[in-house]
């Protein structure tokens, strides 16, 4: 007979609808970047990148290559609008840790993240930021075993109905990673050391203000931000 009703959908991921830039937090603009492009669009995006950015993109598999090109080009375009310059002329660099960096004089900070066919770029004005996007994955008990969720968070997740757990876990993860990326350490800090709670939206964590970023269904994204003068580490 036809496919079993409980079988997983075999349709590909739906193409995300482009979401215009929005202000998630004061002084921070977040833009959703669909990571789909035909060859021509990809070539146009590649033309905006600096040679070392292009080289890094080309080291990746085709999907990674496309993601890096499109995200970086989007980031450059958003920054160009901010600085009133050409995307190619944006003084964007990459720190050894992989974090995008801008000269202090611009008072701008940037972040990006991608998951599946969706990306995000964020720009903070006078604010240091970290942003993370994650596709919602099914909950399995293995997650508890990965060691990054705190016992209190695990208990909170266990109390949720099973249908609510995947989003809660994705939320907990993106909140953590947003903080680690804002700090500039990424996974050089153990994610277990940042406890962000379950079922919370927004609010302060480890000195950072966290915000939920609206993204299409199937993804979760969070933003960590702090004004430059009080950047916690």
């Amino acid at each position, binding site marked *: 007979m036809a496919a079993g009703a409980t*079988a997983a959908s075999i349709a590909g991921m739906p193409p995300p609808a482009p979401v215009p830039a929005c202000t998630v937090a004061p002084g921070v603009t977040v833009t959703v970047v669909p990571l789909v492009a035909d060859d021509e669009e990809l070539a146009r995006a590649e033309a905006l990148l600096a040679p070392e950015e292009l080289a890094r993109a080309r080291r990746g598999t085709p999907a990674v290559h496309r993601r890096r090109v499109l995200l970086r080009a989007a980031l450059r375009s958003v920054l160009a609008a901010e600085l009133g310059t050409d995307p190619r002329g944006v003084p964007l660099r990459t720190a050894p840790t992989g974090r995008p960096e801008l000269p202090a004089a611009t008072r701008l900070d940037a972040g990006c993240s991608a998951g599946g066919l969706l990306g995000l770029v964020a720009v903070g004005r006078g604010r240091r930021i970290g942003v993370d996007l994650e596709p919602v994955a099914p909950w399995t008990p293995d997650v508890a075993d990965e060691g990054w969720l705190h016992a209190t968070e695990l208990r909170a997740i266990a109390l949720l109905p099973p*249908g609510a757990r995947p989003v809660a876990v994705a939320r907990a993860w993106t909140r953590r990673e947003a903080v680690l990326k804002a700090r500039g350490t990424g996974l050089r800090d153990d*994610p277990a050391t940042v406890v962000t709670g379950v079922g919370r939206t927004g609010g302060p964590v480890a000195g950072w203000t966290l915000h939920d970023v609206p993204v299409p269904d199937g993804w979760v994204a969070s933003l960590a931000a702090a004004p430059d003068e009080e950047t916690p580490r």
Partner: protein
Amino acid sequence: MTLAPAVPQLARFRARCEEVTGTALDAPGALHAFSVDRPELFWRTLLDWTELPWSGSADTVLTGTDVETARFFPDLRLNYAEVLLRPLDDAGDDAPALTAVHADRPAEHWTRGELRDAVARTVTALRRLGLAAGDRVVLIAANTGETAVVALAVAAIGAAVSTAAPDMGAASLLGRFAQVEPALLVLDRRAVPDDVVGEVVAGLPTLRRVLLIDDRPLPELDLPVDRLADAAAGAEPTTEWPRHAFDTPLFVMFSSGTTGPPKAMVHGVGGTVLEHVKEHRLHVDLGPGDTLYFHTTTAWMMWNWQLSALATGAAVVVYDGPVAGPETLWQLAADHRVTVFGTSPAYLQLCQDAGHRPAEAGDLSRLRAVLSTGAVLHDWQFDWVAETVGPVPVQSVSGGTDIIGCFVLGAPDVPVRRGRCQTRSLGLDVAAVDEDGTEVVGQVGELVCRRPFPSRPVGFLRDPDGSRFHAAYFADHPGMWTHGDLIEFDPDGSSRLHGRSDGVLNIDGLRIGPSEIYTVLRQLPEVADAMAVEQRDDGRPGGTRMVLLVVLRPGARLDGGLDRTIRRTLRREASAAHVPSLVVAVGELPLTHNGKRSERAARDAVNGDPIANAVALRNPGCLDEIRRAVAEAAAVPAAPDEDDGLPGRVARIWCEVLGVRSAAPDDDWSDLGGTSRQVLSLLRRVRLELDADVPVQRFAEDPTPAGLARAAEAALTAAPAGVAVLRAGEGRPVFLVPDAWGQLNLYAGLVDRLATTRPVLGLRLPLRDAAGRHRTIEEVAADALEQVRGAQPEGPHTLLGYSFGGLVAYDVATRLRAAGEDVGCLGLLDVRPPRAALSRWETERVRWAGRRATLRGALQAALHRLTGPRRPAAPVAAPAAPDPELRFFLGTQEVSEAYRPGRFDGPVDYFLAEGSRAAARRTLGAWRRRVGELRVVEVPGYHGDLDDERIGMLSDRHVGTLAAEVSAALD
């Protein structure tokens, strides 16, 4: 309590047939033989016996003998809604008819009278909005009560209805419904996004009107839009149920094939009614007092099938929510007192894998049958239902959208044989045939139906001369309906399906049309041609996997890079389900003399089976190459081999987590698309399988296979003996004692499935001293005791150990008792008593068998460790010099055999592997003499470690049962 009538309806019908024919029909198979040998008498008797309301004449039953063209009851007229909703003797207007269950709101209920009234009002409303007999309606809505009401009202008018699940995209919906040319579109926007609504309406130019089931604000469309509730509110219920000719279109259904757009097939009212009423009453024994739930969406023919059950007087439950977990549907069955529950092998497997025990979770006492369809139901799934659901028959049924019914299914008077469908559908001359169309029994053949049957589609839409219809079913074997499934019948009439005979793949129950794969691969310049085939997966009995044969352009080579590109492109452009398990480069694909690609020949070659249709091929020589290439590709380590030591093991885990086939030592994690979130699952696997705790930060410094291997090495060297948290939790820990290799990874499946909220801790125990000498069980146990006390100062303690680990656990338990502490639970997983513990008589009896087993086992186990658990050990010759792993294992064996267990005054839970039963008869006495009480629980599988070719009790296959038994034994 049982609600099924004491005498199945089948027996009463058989008696009627015996009366009519004057012949005894009680011999096995006699009724089916009568039903196909004398179709006119059979179908006429069925029509009369079922007392369906009809008019016209039933004198002409059948107009010919050709399955493609013969028509049934050309002068008979009936109304689908009237058949389903009429008052019945034991199911009057107050009897329950329909329950609609939702995940997010309370269930709704309709009695038969209420449902008829709702349908009758909707009929008036639809007529007022211009719907007339002969029109076609598209209904896009979830599986709710309103959906059923609308479909019944459309049918009552004599219009045809085509349903679709709301989760389809606009393109898929239009690919189907543009062919239907509907006059009316009925939508439930609770389940259909607004942009899809707009696109679908724009793409269906024949629409005259749109009707909405939901009560959200009306959208702006260029067509008249109404709310169904408004239209039906003031409507007088109709009393007219006009009866329509037998072949009047009732349902338009779709079936996707290997090529072209989905076929739009039209099913007639008479064929659908007769087939469904026959299956429901005779095969499933449904009637008043029954409650049917069959898990389906509105896009699947089981939706139409379950709706028709109303005609028997049974109540029907529908559900539009998600399956949130293994408990969802069983809970629904318990809550709504379901008597016949239908699902799929995939769901049953999900439940089994999760260790769910439905009968313990809810009251399933009313359940009297479990039906399953959609894919092959495996032997062990029958056992699982028997063990965890109850002693109800499991009926594996199979048929298709094409016949809106079943070819093979259950029967109330035939015993269930595990792994098989019980019987042929009455009146359907179903057989397995070989290439020449000759019936085969006891071997796999093509599923055909050789004589006319009423639920054959009336035809396809957009197929004026019937040529597409002919090509779809009658081209392969002239004069027979060829269904496209492979099946094998036994002489007793039971059968087993063997997947699709055409190119459609059925990978573990998921149907995949390969055309999508080919479309995606067209973007890769290196690939000239490709063919995806299904292969039996020897690693998982009953499982299948996808093998992709590719023909490369001159100059291209299938190296790790191209292999990876193919997989990633498929995953990205199609879905994870479209990614093959194996990619193999071949020179040519098999073609028939007509130049048609023969997926079937390729599949036979890939499986190493005899080629069934070799004479029909233009290039049979290519099959040898395919067979050889696939064998080589499967033998060549697909993932890095474990022979490479730690780097190899690390690389294997790396590849599995990323879904890539090979890894170079310097590959960068993020270059390959690895996310930081995946890092955590990578490191979890490394911890569990290699026992190396690599900190995230350490991985981030050098995110490559080589870097990870170095980090793992460092973690291993530095690993202090101590307690590892295998699973976090609350309360007293459950301690697991490592195996003869000092490792805990064999417990991974058990740890996952233990039904307890308590933490699960693994002891890490050095098995050798500084000089490399194996420490005795007592010495190891002394360490273990210290770790146990460190983690849990006071009893009662819970200890589990497998084999060698069981001996250590036993010794720890005796020491705890000697110190006056409580042991709450001591679980021994197939722990053969040491030789030193046996009486002289026992020693005598096991000596020879024992020695052989030890030597063979030790060698095999060593090979097993070297070659990895998934690959056959054959290519590796027995090591000439004793290798370190074998030496280590033999050392552990030696100290095990020398151990003299003391007395333990408490109870011991002994989990005896089925495969060890014979040996245990001779030796379990050694345990019984020493312990207060030996509670033996038998679990499926072999001991495992020593019998690596057989499936161990801790293997994925059996660990679910073991985990359930162990969970039940926990204190």
